[in-house]
């Protein structure tokens, strides 16, 4: 089963994305901060990561750089960024992010991007 890892310190966003992604047939794991996110990443080997840019302890940019330093096929990463220059997409592209969505976003925007890359054939067809 395709596993999506959602790393976000906002429980509301985690829940919203979990519901939307589970509805599409994905198995979803969540983590509430960057460090927990990296631990879960190593434990579950997700097929796709949805990552908040702005988190305490270890922010999304640091998580992304750590994930990109690993060997093997790179896992697709979608970063959720605030519309501020400090945490915006401009910082994430050079670190190897695949997609960026600026807040506020809708769960549909997230599921569409996830489907386009790791979706089952039927998810792709429904677009």
């Amino acid at each position, binding site marked *: 089963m395709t596993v999506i890892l959602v790393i976000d310190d906002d429980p509301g966003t985690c829940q919203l994305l979990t519901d939307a992604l589970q509805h599409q047939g994905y198995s979803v794991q969540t983590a509430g901060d960057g460090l927990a996110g990296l631990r879960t990443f190593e434990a579950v080997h997700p097929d796709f990561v949805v990552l908040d840019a702005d988190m305490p302890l270890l922010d999304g940019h640091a998580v992304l750089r750590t994930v990109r330093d690993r060997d093997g096929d790179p896992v697709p990463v979608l970063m959720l960024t605030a519309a501020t220059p400090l945490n915006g997409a*401009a910082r994430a*592209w050079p670190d190897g992010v695949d*997609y*960026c969505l600026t807040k506020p976003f809708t769960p549909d925007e997230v599921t569409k991007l996830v489907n386009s890359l790791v979706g089952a*054939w039927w998810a792709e067809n429904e677009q």
Partner: protein
Amino acid sequence: MTTRVLFVDDEPRILDGLRRSLRAYRHRWEMAFATSGAQALEMLAATPHDIVLSDMRMPGMDGAELLTRISQNHPEVARVVLSGHTEPAAAIRVAIAGHRFLNKPADVEQVAGVITELTARPSRTAEVGDEGQRVRRAAGAVRSLPTPPEHLEQVRKLLGRPDGDLASAAYAVAHNVGLAAKLFQLAASPFFSSRTRVTSLGNAVAAVGSPTIRSLADTGELLWPGPTPRLAETVRQAVATADLVALIASPGNRPYAHAAALLQDVGRFARQPAGDPDVSTRAVGVELLRLWGLPTPVVAAVAQRDREHTPDASGLGVAAAVRAAYLLVQQTDARDPDDDAHDAELASLLAHPQLANAPTDWLRAADDAAARAEGWTAGRESRSGRERRS
């Protein structure tokens, strides 16, 4: 139109098991059962079917021979192998003849999943009606893509050397459209592949393993029939685009983009069935990749290669990265003379924030990629190619 599925196995109890376990699907497909290859061919001649799922080991006509005959006489029928057999020589014969490969005893969900995938008509990529049937026939008649003998020799040499490792084999396969296509196809099937999700060519090479790759390189089935300058040009352009898209696509999209660039024109390798009006080679290529079970982003990027792209702010994605690399290669000596320039579109793709701040001179990178591809397809490994591998 009802989907018709034909199951072939010489053991009636296996067929009974399939009939029982797939009962829940009987309202979705009409199922028929044959206990020999000869009976299956009679049934196909009498009634059109959409899919055949055949056992490999049968007395008289075995599965490989049956599927080869079906590819010749009924190319519109999708060919699935159900096999528990692992004898390498026979495995290679079905690897050439089949579209999909399942382990036996097969998991019901897997069988149903493959049938559903092979009968689905994705709205964005597939043709419908008569045109769709012609596309399916042209794609279904293809068992493998032709490959120049010197490229197969190169792969054999790399795998045969005592220090020959899978990474150098993957490098050689990355310049070999025919073999790469076959490896992606096999890697998508649990029978040949040790991994559940294969995205990159390196991963596909590792999943299929060197003994199978060597046997594939040894089979005459992949051989280039003779000098075909148009196909050589297609291969050169595909190799240059794949090389370049590795710089353009973001890390998570890169394996898909590389595969799509390499396989972008597989439709040109297919022979159009005699007597049929010509169908679009792009549609045939897309159908072929779908039949072979390549990942959706790869199939979608190949389907959209000729479509004008407006980059999405959220990221270039696979298809736009492939399109950008293709348009850049069109600016070099490796260009496809049949296509026009798309300067404004290319400029807008390269201005995407994902690429705009990268310290790369894209036109120069495209020239380098074209020169490397030229060197490789002319049979000599370029200096930079050697450096990349070491």
